[in-house]
């Protein structure tokens, strides 16, 4: 007897959905010995939003140039 093609398609789809569900449930386990180690990992994976540099760019353009300290003026004169 020939299998019903629609039933076969249904089974295949169920199979794929099950495999996908399993893949989604498969998670990466991370283990840390101490709180600061975990925080360090989190910090390393937290990028700085590029908007901050853009905003600083605008803010610095409005700022007067910072005064140069006496010792830096002194050193630059010697060079």
């Amino acid at each position, binding site marked *: 007897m020939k299998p019903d093609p629609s039933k076969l398609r249904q089974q295949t789809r169920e199979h794929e959905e099950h495999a996908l569900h399993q893949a989604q449930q498969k*998670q*990466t*386990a*991370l*283990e*840390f*010995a*101490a*709180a*600061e*180690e*975990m*925080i*360090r*990992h*989190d*910090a390393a*994976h*937290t*990028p*700085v*939003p*590029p*908007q*901050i*540099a*853009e*905003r*600083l*760019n*605008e*803010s*610095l*353009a409005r*700022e007067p140039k*910072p*005064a*140069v*300290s006496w010792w*830096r003026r002194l050193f630059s004169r010697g060079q």
Partner: protein
Amino acid sequence: MASPVASKEFVDTTDASQEKPVEHEPVQAGRARDRNEAQGAPDRPLIWISTEFGAIYEAHAQSIYYLALRLLGDPTQAEDATHDVFLKAYRKMNQFRGDSAVRTWLYRIAINHCRNLLQTWHHRHMVTNADDAIWETSSVATDNPLRVLETKELGQRIQKTLEALPEEYRLLLLLVADEKLSYQDVAALTGQTADAVRGKLHRARKAFAAAFAKFA
């Protein structure tokens, strides 16, 4: 070769009560503009990035942003705070004398800035009043490794955990997590001795482990 400024030291003269407020656009306007810029190219090139100050920003922005993010608990506020911290640093660059490292100096500005923000009405009503005793008498063993399954949820869980801790522990853990800071640096930033930092760190780890388990 490293920037000469980045390797030299600044004196921290930042006093939260005497700081000139950072004047910037109203927050809403700034955010609207940020959204526009995020969609396209910036209006003007980041010329300052190639300067001494730019080198300082490149070297320390990530740490300052992360500290602000975890102290304030809000990415938008952390963004504003990081901007303000670096703007204050830019304005105070002439006070460079050499009692502390640039990183420590920036951390001090950031801590003062975040504390000021946390003292506002809004934050006073949002901060949880965690009792030290709850965590210190917890039965959770601290020698067990901290496990997390969902990598993407790690940040949220760390945030919840830190918010449940007393401010002193939260700051201590965040500073000790920065490998570029010594115990002496952390002690200077938190106004205590290095020995006191080591002692409190043990209790802070225990409190973190207990709170972290609670938010599983």
